[in-house]
């Protein structure tokens, strides 16, 4: 204990070292004065008295120094000495220091940049009370398409989960709603809103800044005409009026009483912040899945325990309600991960990528240090001969590498700040990740960078230090001048080069797979004509245009007006435009044919289109016909299918005239007949092979859909027609809200933006890795050649041709690269599989990609070895012989 106390006192005194030093000087001066006084009293002359006092003390400076050692932190002197020495050697060889620091700055900087993004998106606590205990509980739906882990939940299931799962302290649910808010007479706008269970605010641990939260009984339909405003809505739409409570707001043409205003930064959806909250009325339909569930775990309960608990509850519900709950399961995810969504995977992949870059950087610096150690053998030997212990030498070398790491870390912090800004700017443009915009170089990032710098300093420093410090004294002193032991680069360095080649190949493979996907997308024709097509996204307010009776006239009127515009070649409505990211699928029966499996029906992508859709899009009809104006609400139900669907479902005959039964409700289904087979179109993504697709006529579909796309084919570039089309839609029905208007080229560019971003990011880091690995190989071969200059001279003198020498040296480099590539391919096959979840259409182990990537790497290896090989071949045989 006392020793600890003394150590703390010493460490503390390091801070006020100057003052302590002065105090010791003072004390010793006072000591001498007292002694001199006594001596003079004993009869000495002042001079004698002083001399005697100093001698008896044992020398003033010596005593002072001994005291200083007591005051300073332990090892302070030695380490200071090491640091000064290290700085001096770096200054003598600035090229080495600069290379090492730059390499490290790049490695550490990239890692810290991605960490700062991860910190903002995944690590920083959510702005709710005790956010670590909050989880999102999704529904799991198993269908023919696969498993959807992020499905919605029905109200009765939510209530049962909440009441039966003991691991949940509380739970709330919400549904996203687009609400039409009348802000002034005749003026309405569509806003994002949420219907929430009254419990939800309590689950999150938040209270309105003004007014009250919802009362528990406000989930009764009669009492639910109340609304809580977001701070943003309150400020922007109501001018921040403090007397707003009790006033009414027209929402979906119904008056709602304002009872509260939330705090400025509160949003449930961090990505797309909602404007209004209304109570969610109780809903008794067990198979109406429309809710998101947020729950608070009991104290000291993990998400995993809650998952097990809910699995049990779901099994119980499946037994109790087999008709609706067969196969319904729950999926518990920490709320912070749920909010980050797909951005989480992308960030983690990027973090793995930069970690590899950092590893390569470390390897390079370690290799540099080893090379430097070899040239310093003599220095080490001399120091050892003069009495420096092995530990002392290792410490000296470690101080050097730590110094490099610290310098690299400081430079890396600037690199990180710069990279993080660029990353946030690029990503926000393409694929907004919630909370990514809050990326800052904060305390945690600095702490992380410090930790990484120190760790790297030790990681890349220890092995070289041990190797370099254990030089054989005799050997080194005898022939440090020209080494025969260094005839081959040491095994450790060769191992390092193999490792970094392998790592670089893994990154290149990842970048290659992503780029391949992008190239595939570029090279794949979408299957329809993309020129001169205007795309209008419309929102159909549920109150006005939800029922078929009110929608059909709008479709007819809008199409008639738009088609009549000069310069318009055709126009059609469609629910999900190809490549827009929207897609849906349905299951159906084929009459007279058994289902593929019990409880598993036929399944296909489903879309809804108006008359002349295929003609407007430029999709060829292979057989049968397009939707015509005669396919109306009363006419027999017809569908058009794509070629893949025709081949899949009716492989042995023409699909025309074949029927399907599409279930509308549990009891009722409609019979639809195939009237046309259209060419395949890339709907989900350019790199995703076509799936079977079924088009239902927009005037015959009972399905309620809120957003719809109007495609307008024009004679010329469509930008001139934007205003005319807008006006035509407004004339057809003022209720339809125009969300946005683009050209199809813009839609396609948007669908490629994300793959382009990923291949750009991973590609940039992979190139950095490749350059680092090439530099590492170049350094190793150069070093080896320099060490063997003598040998090369002799070989030439004995008759070896220059090209033989080049081949010899090249062989050494390429052999290492080949081993590294082989290991890298194995690693790459495993690693690229992680990319599959990133976007649709990724093919992880594409042989061509791996061949191209491996050849690129080997070409770089040849280049990196060729330069030193040429140097070796230029060795002067005379100089070598003279030295002999």
């Amino acid at each position, binding site marked *: 204990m006392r020793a600890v106390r003394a150590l703390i006192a010493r460490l503390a005194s390091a801070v006020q070292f100057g003052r302590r030093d002065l105090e*010791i000087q003072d004390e010793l001066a006072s000591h001498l004065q007292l002694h001199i006084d006594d001596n003079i009293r004993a009869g000495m002359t002042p001079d004698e008295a002083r001399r005697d006092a100093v001698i008896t003390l044992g020398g003033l400076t010596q005593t002072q120094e001994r005291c200083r050692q007591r*005051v300073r932190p332990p090892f302070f002197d030695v380490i200071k000495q090491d640091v000064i020495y290290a700085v001096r050697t770096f200054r003598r060889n600035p090229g080495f220091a600069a290379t090492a620091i730059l390499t490290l700055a790049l490695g550490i900087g990239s890692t810290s940049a991605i960490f700062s993004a991860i910190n903002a998106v995944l690590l920083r606590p959510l702005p709710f009370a005790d956010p670590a205990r909050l989880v999102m509980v999704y529904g799991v739906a198993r269908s023919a398409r696969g498993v959807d882990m992020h499905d919605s939940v029905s109200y009765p299931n939510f209530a049962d989960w909440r009441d039966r799962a003991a691991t949940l302290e509380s739970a709330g649910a919400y549904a996203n709603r687009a609400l039409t808010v009348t802000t002034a007479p005749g003026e309405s706008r569509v806003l994002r809103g949420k219907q929430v269970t009254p419990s939800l605010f309590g689950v999150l641990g938040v209270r309105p800044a003004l007014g009250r939260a919802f009362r528990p009984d406000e989930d009764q339909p009669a009492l639910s005409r109340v609304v809580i405003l977001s701070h943003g809505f309150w400020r922007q739409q109501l001018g921040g009026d403090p007397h707003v409570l009790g006033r009414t707001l027209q929402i979906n043409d119904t008056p709602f009483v304002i009872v509260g205003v939330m705090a400025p930064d509160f949003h449930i959806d961090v990505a797309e912040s909602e404007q209004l909250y209304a109570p969610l009325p109780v809903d008794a339909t067990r198979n109406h899945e429309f809710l998101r569930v947020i729950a608070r775990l009991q104290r000291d309960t993990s998400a995993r325990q809650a998952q097990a608990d809910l699995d049990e509850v779901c099994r119980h519900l499946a037994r109790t309600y087999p008709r609706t709950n067969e196969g319904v399961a729950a999926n518990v995810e920490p709320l912070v991960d749920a909010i980050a969504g797909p951005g989480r995977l992308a960030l983690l992949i990027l973090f793995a990528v930069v970690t590899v870059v950092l590893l390569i950087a470390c390897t390079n610096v370690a290799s540099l240090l080893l090379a430097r150690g070899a040239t310093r053998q003599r220095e080490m030997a001399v120091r050892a001969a003069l009495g420096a212990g092995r530990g002392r030498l290792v410490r000296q070398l470690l101080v050097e590498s730590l110094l490099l790491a610290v310098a690299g870390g400081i430079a890396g912090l600037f690199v990180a700040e710069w990279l993080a800004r660029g990353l946030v700017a690029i990503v926000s443009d393409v694929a907004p990740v919630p909370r990514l915009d809050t990326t800052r170089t904060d305390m945690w990032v600095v702490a992380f960078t410090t930790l990484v710098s120190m760790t790297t300093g030790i990681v890349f420093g220890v092995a070289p230090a041990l190797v370099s410090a254990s030089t054989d004294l005799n050997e080194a002193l005898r022939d440090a001048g020209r080494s025969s032991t260094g005839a081959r680069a040491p095994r450790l360095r060769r191992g390092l080069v193999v490792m970094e080649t392998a790592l670089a190949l893994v990154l290149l493979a990842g970048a290659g797979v992503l780029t391949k996907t992008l190239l595939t997308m570029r090279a794949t024709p979408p299957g329809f004509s993309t020129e001169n097509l205007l795309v209008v996204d419309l929102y159909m307010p549920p109150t006005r245009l939800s029922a078929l009776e009110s929608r059909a006239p709008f479709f007819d009127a809008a199409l008639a007006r738009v088609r009549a515009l000069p310069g318009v070649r055709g126009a059609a409505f469609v629910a999900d435009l190809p490549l827009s990211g929207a897609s849906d699928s349905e299951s159906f029966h084929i009459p007279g044919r058994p289902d593929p499996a019990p409880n598993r029906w036929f399944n296909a992508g489903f879309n809804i289109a108006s008359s002349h859709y295929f003609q407007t899009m430029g999709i060829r009809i292979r057989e049968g016909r397009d939707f015509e104006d005669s396919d109306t609400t009363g006419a027999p139900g017809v569908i058009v299918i794509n070629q893949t669907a025709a081949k899949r479902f009716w492989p042995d005959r023409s699909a025309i005239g074949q029927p399907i039964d599409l279930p509308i409700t549990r009891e009722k289904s409609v019979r639809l007949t195939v009237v046309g087979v259209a060419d395949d179109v890339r709907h989900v993504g350019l790199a995703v092979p076509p799936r079977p697709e079924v088009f239902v006529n927009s005037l015959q579909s009972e399905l309620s859909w809120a957003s719809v796309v109007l495609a307008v084919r024009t004679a010329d570039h469509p930008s001139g027609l934007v205003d005319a089309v807008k006006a035509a839609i407004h004339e057809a029905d003022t209720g339809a809200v125009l969300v946005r208007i683009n050209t199809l080229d813009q839609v396609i560019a948007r669908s490629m933006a994300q793959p382009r971003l990923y291949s750009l990011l991973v590609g940039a880091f992979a190139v950095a890795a490749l350059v680092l690995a090439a530099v590492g190989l170049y350094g190793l071969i150069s070093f080896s050649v320099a060490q063997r200059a003598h040998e090369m001279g002799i070989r030439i003198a004995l008759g070896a041709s220059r090209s033989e020498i080049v081949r010899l040296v090249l062989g050494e480099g390429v052999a290492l690269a080949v081993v590294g590539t082989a290991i890298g391919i194995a690693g790459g096959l495993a690693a690229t599989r992680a990319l599959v979840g990133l976007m649709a259409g990724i093919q992880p182990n594409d042989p061509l990609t791996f061949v191209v990537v491996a050849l690129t790497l080997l070409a770089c290896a040849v280049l990196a070895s060729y330069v030193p090989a040429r140097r070796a071949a230029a060795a002067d045989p005379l100089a070598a012989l003279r030295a002999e």
Partner: protein
Amino acid sequence: MADVWQGTLALMVLKTLEGLGPLHGYGIARRIEQTSSNHLSVNYGTIYPALLKLEQEGYIASEWGVSDNNRRAKFYRLTRAGRKHLEREARSWERTTEILARFLAPRETS
């Protein structure tokens, strides 16, 4: 030997402070020299690192003051922890010397 010297010196310092009360470094050094009847003649300077160590360990505390003949000097005094430590150390030292003395004493019987 250096370790033994360090340990015993610390003990001597503590004992001196216990006997004489607050005292400056010069006084302590002087006193130790006198008590050992000049058998121990070491540099006075060695006392200062020992004092620093004892102070860091919290056994003694220091304060600037004025000496008998009006000189400024740093005075050390024993802390409570120091007093306890001295007691403990003195006892263990006595035991050690006793054992050693018995060991080294000329045998009387057999």
